[in-house]
């Protein structure tokens, strides 16, 4: 009996598939090896010029008159690329007169021109690259143009905010414009965004406090929590910045917001309207352990009356991490107040004291 021969078409089909596969395999292998060879050659060429470019760069950086122009005219394409990379590295490392001279150099390099072009183009990565250069250089900044072209995406808004921060001395109201821009979409910020928001408001968070007070209704709870957290890192604002709205956040449905709001209450505990408006009992009885922990952390530095509330809470606290935090924050005061501590909190206290003792050694 002859085996049932598959029809010729199946046979042929498989054959063609095999041919196709072989072509694809050869192509993939060829490209892989080709890229590897080309990459290695390029590496070697870059290595060959790197050291001499760096030496020359550092040498000219030390002169009062670096004469960048005459040097740049004599450089090849590759040498200019290497120089651009090194300039970018040093711009991030240096301040002072060296940085000023680097600004001058960067402007003469292609980077200077690249800042201008991509802002209007559709490519997001090119725009982000240009904004990074712009933040590092002392180029003139057209704020309206930046905001118009680069505010579609969270990373771009952060990058524009960073430009505003770096040029804050030349731009009126940089902190306010930046704060409004960063929070304009009402959604979560990347870390580049939160850090920029922080830098813009670091020494005076009035813009952030004002924006939160009026705009927070349009934000997601995640952004509100981020804004509150940012406020805890900033220096406290002066007496007339709006702050009462933080009390509303303590009633928010989101535990992350309540937790962050408690942090702000801690930072602004010296403002009577906040201190007197806080319901300490309610905060330490919050159903979510992380919120209770925040309450313990912030209130343990307050007056005796609040501390009494915390000592009371210690007796009933069920979350072991929260108990440990209380024991660390209150330590000796817990022992003073109560003779018979519940076993859970007593164990935490023993632990906290053992840690302290080890640290002291």
């Amino acid at each position, binding site marked *: 009996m002859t085996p049932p021969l598959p029809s010729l078409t199946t046979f042929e089909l498989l054959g063609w598939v095999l041919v196709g596969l072989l072509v694809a395999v050869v192509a993939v292998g060829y490209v892989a090896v080709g890229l590897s060879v080309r990459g290695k050659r390029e590496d070697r060429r870059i290595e060959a010029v790197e050291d001499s470019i*760096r*030496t020359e760069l*550092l*040498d000219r950086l*030390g002169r009062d008159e670096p004469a960048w122009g005459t040097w740049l005219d004599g450089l090849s394409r590759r040498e200019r690329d290497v120089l651009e990379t*090194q300039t970018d*590295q*040093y711009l*991030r*490392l*240096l*301040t*002072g*007169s*060296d*940085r000023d001279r680097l600004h001058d150099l960067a402007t003469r390099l292609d980077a200077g021109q690249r800042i201008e072009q991509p802002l209007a183009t559709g490519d997001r990565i090119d725009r982000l690259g240009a904004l990074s250069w712009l933040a590092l250089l002392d180029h003139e900044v057209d704020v309206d143009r930046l905001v118009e072209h680069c505010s579609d995406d969270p990373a771009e808004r952060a990058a524009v905010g960073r430009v505003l921060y770096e040029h804050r001395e030349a731009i009126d109201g940089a902190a306010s414009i930046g704060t409004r821009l960063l929070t304009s979409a009402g959604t979560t910020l990347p870390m580049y965004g939160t850090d920029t928001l922080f830098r813009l408001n670091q020494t005076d968070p009035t813009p952030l406090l004002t924006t939160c007070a009026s705009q927070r209704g349009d934000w997601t709870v995640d952004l509100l929590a981020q804004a509150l957290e940012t406020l805890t890192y900033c220096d406290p604002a002066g007496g007339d910045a709006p702050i009462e709205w933080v009390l509303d956040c303590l009633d928010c449905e989101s535990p992350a917001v309540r937790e962050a709001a408690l942090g702000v209450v801690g930072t602004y505990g010296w403002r009577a309207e906040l201190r007197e408006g806080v319901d300490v009992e309610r905060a330490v009885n919050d159903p979510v352990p992380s919120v209770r922990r925040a309450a313990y952390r912030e209130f343990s530095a307050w007056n005796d009356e609040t501390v009494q509330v915390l000592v009371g809470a210690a007796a009933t606290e069920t979350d072991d991490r929260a108990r440990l935090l209380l024991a660390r924050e209150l330590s000796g005061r817990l022992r003073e107040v109560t003779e018979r501590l519940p076993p859970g909190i007593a164990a935490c206290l023993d632990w906290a004291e053992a840690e302290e003792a080890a640290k002291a050694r």
Partner: protein
Amino acid sequence: MPPHILLADDEVQIRQLLEFKLQGKGFEVTVVDDGAECLDHLEGPDELPDAVLLDVMMPQVDGFRALETIRDTLSEELPVIMLTTRSREPDAIRGLENGANEYIEKPFSPDEVIARVERHLQ
């Protein structure tokens, strides 16, 4: 004889820049790229340098531990200037508590670093 500076930093750009600048000012510079090498050099047979520039975040032995070893076993007077990208307060406090003479944050101005080194050499 020119003053001798030991420079310990794992970032190649900073090493090259400061070495270049310090040499330009007439210092003799020894460069190492991690904390263990830094201590090896200090504990070696050569005389102690006149000042140490010490990065905080370095492989093997970080700047704080190197500083503690220097203060505990080598010299209480040797000027040590810490360089770091960290800017959170506890780090500055820890550096100064452990006996760093200066604590400079990156990004920094090389001229300022040199001025501070010179101040401690006087």
